[in-house]
C-alpha cells in the first residue's frame, strides 16, 4: 500500500515539500511505518535525528494511533514530533 506521511514541526526542516510517500505491505502497522520513515530519513535527510522520530507519534486526521494499530486503508498519515502548543 502507498502511505502518505505529512511532516510537522521539526520534520518540516528536512525538505521543502511537507509530505513523504512510502510503499508498505498491505496490513502494515504503525511500527512498520515508523521503521520505514526511519529508513527514509537516514537515506534522504542529512540532519535526520532518529531520537526525535523515536519520540514522535503517528496519527490520522482523527486520532493518534498506537504502534500496534494497522495503518488506515486510505494511507493518509501524519508524523507528530513532541508537541509544544500554547
Amino acid at each position, binding site marked *: 500500500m502507498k502511505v502518505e506521511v505529512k511532516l*510537522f514541526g521539526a520534520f518540516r526542516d528536512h525538505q521543502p515539500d511537507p509530505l513523504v510517500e512510502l510503499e508498505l505491505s498491505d496490513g502494515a502497522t504503525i511500527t512498520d511505518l515508523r521503521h520505514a520513515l526511519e529508513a527514509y530519513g537516514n537515506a534522504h535527510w542529512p540532519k535526520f535525528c532518529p531520537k526525535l522520530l523515536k519520540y514522535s*507519534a503517528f496519527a490520522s*486526521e482523527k486520532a*493518534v494511533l498506537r504502534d500496534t494499530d494497522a495503518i488506515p486503508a486510505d494511507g493518509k498519515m501524519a508524523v507528530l514530533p*513532541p508537541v*509544544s*502548543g500554547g
Partner: protein
Amino acid sequence: MSAHHCTVVDIAEGKLDPAAALDFVSDPAFGGITLFVGRVRDFNVGRDVTGISYDMFVPLALNGFADIAARAEHDFGGKLKLYIGHAKGRLGLGDLAMVVAAGTPHRDEAFRACRQVVEAVKHTSPIWKQEHYIDGDSIWSEGCSLCEHTDSAHAQHDHA
C-alpha cells in the same frame, strides 16, 4: 456540543478575540467566567525573541479540542461552556497564541475547567512552536511526546 466553541485562526486571516470568547461562554445561569490568554513574549530561556511560528495539524487539533471539551464537561458537569482557540502561522510579539475561556455557575469550576483545558491543549494538541530570535536563529521548541511508549516520560518541555 453547541456549548463549546473550538477554533483555529490563521494569523494571516485574523486574530484570536478574547471578547468573543467571553461572550461565547457567558450565560444567564453562570456567575463565574475564567479566561486565559497566551501571548508571544519577548524573552525565553535567556534569548530575545522576535516572534513564534505555530505549525499545526488542524483537523486533528480540532478533534482534540472537542475531546478536551468533552472531558471537561464530564469532569465539571453539564453546566459548562468552553471556548478553545489557538493561532496558527507566524506571530509577532504580543500576538495572541491561545485563548481559552470557561463559564460555569460558580467560580471554582470556572478556574479549574479553564486550567485543565489550557494544560490539555498545551500537552496533547498537535501544535508545534518555532521560536525566532533577534540574532536570526530559529528553534523548534522541545515538547511533550504523544507516543504511548513515552506516556510517562515526556521529552523535556518548556512552560511558555
